[in-house]
């Protein structure tokens, strides 16, 4: 009898704990604009803070303790944003007196003190332009100096850290896998895309919000597909879709993992089980670059491109709110506490 009561108490406590987690889950969204990040409260969908910042923004990554957001700007600056104070606390330039360097791909390293970047570099010598081959580099976030680097293929534009950042996948025409676990970085494998006529634009990275899955859409002359990278295992999955392709800049998986939402001029729902397209809903106001969802999966956010953020009800797919942002934007990231 006592054992039964004890078990009942344990189950009750666990259920209460799960319920309180749901109640306490709070979403905050960060709209990456131009010269500004705007903070959106996920419970009210209201803009609650503006963070002035230098430049037009591109990549972003949250620190592992969720206290800081790192964003790249003008392809050569890295800003560190304190999310408790909503202000930029540090900015570094990856260039130096010898080379201008541009960032096409950014991922924080697990040590919290360095980051992996894909760098394109240029300089002039005797009046002539010199462009160096792109390099995957690990840089010190204190001053931007390069700790180590390795040459990677031209046209690489995005980085994905896998297996606790022991490997970096460099995404461009193909996916090049780099082992960074030893002192010397090594290219160990390549996942072919270009030879398969895939056309890919991997500029929006919601891996953190997407349950550790990096996901991007691709196009062939015949179809659209989804490529996903499980950042825990490193496994790459190709999901070709049936039917005429829709147009999408970015995609994101639903919380139940059964659907994928895609956005450009329309919000498109993709059924992962049947690999087919579902409803296609025009977005009020036109094109958007970025997509995100609330942590409970009940709301879908599309933003960027122009200066609006549209909130959709995920069940009815009806727009329930349009936020007018101060600037045009690039991305819309979510942090859940």
């Amino acid at each position: 009898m006592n054992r039964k009561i004890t078990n009942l108490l344990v189950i009750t406590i666990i259920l209460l704990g799960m319920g309180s987690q749901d109640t306490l889950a709070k979403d905050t969204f960060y709209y990456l604009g131009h010269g500004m990040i705007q903070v959106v409260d996920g419970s009210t969908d209201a803009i609650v803070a503006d963070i002035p910042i230098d430049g037009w923004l591109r990549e972003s990554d949250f620190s592992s303790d969720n206290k800081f957001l790192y964003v790249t700007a003008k392809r050569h600056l890295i800003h560190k944003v304190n999310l408790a104070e909503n202000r930029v606390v540090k900015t570094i330039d990856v260039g130096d007196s010898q080379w201008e360097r541009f960032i096409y791909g950014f991922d924080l390293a697990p040590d919290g003190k360095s980051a992996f970047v894909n760098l394109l570099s240029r300089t002039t010598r005797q009046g002539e332009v010199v462009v160096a081959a792109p390099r995957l580099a690990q840089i010190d976030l204190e001053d931007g100096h390069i700790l180590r680097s390795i040459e990677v293929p031209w046209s690489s534009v995005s980085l994905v850290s896998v297996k606790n950042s022991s490997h970096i996948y460099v995404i461009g025409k193909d996916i090049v896998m780099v082992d960074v676990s030893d002192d010397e970085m090594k290219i160990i494998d390549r996942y072919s895309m270009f030879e398969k006529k895939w056309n890919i634009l991997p500029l929006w990275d919601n891996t953190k919000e997407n349950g550790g899955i990096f996901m991007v859409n691709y196009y062939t002359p015949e179809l659209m597909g989804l490529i996903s990278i499980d950042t825990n295992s490193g496994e790459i999955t190709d999901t070709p879709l049936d039917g005429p392709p829709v147009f999408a800049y970015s995609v994101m998986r639903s919380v139940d993992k059964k659907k994928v939402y895609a956005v450009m001029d329309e919000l498109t729902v993709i059924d992962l089980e049947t690999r087919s397209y579902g409803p296609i809903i025009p977005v009020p106001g036109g094109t958007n670059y970025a997509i995100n969802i609330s942590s409970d999966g009940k709301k879908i956010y599309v933003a960027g491109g122009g200066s609006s953020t549209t909130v959709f009800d995920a069940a009815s797919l009806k727009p329930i709110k349009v936020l007018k942002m101060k600037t045009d934007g690039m991305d819309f990231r979510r942090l859940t506490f």
Partner: protein
Amino acid sequence: MKKKRPIQALNAKARAIQSLLDGEGKTVAALQQGPPAMPVGCTTIFDTGWETNPRPTYPVGNCQSSAKDFHGCAGDCWWPAQVPDGLTNHQDFDKQCPNVARDWRVLKYD
């Protein structure tokens, strides 16, 4: 008889350019020619891809409206002839015009 050059290089820079021309090899190739290649220069990627595909039904063509794609095209220098080149000549173009639909009248660039 040696053919005379129509233009003579007179200073060091001109002579440097002349020497480049003398030794110039193939510098331009069609993108479709093998091996698979993409242009290298202002931009690292140039997948005009789906943005330029006309559609049979609404919405037809590119981004709706084109202003919504202005900053995306400008910052990374996708279309440097049409919009400000954000990597070299107009790195701070966004300060003039952070919201294109609202601020386009004040945008100035060469």
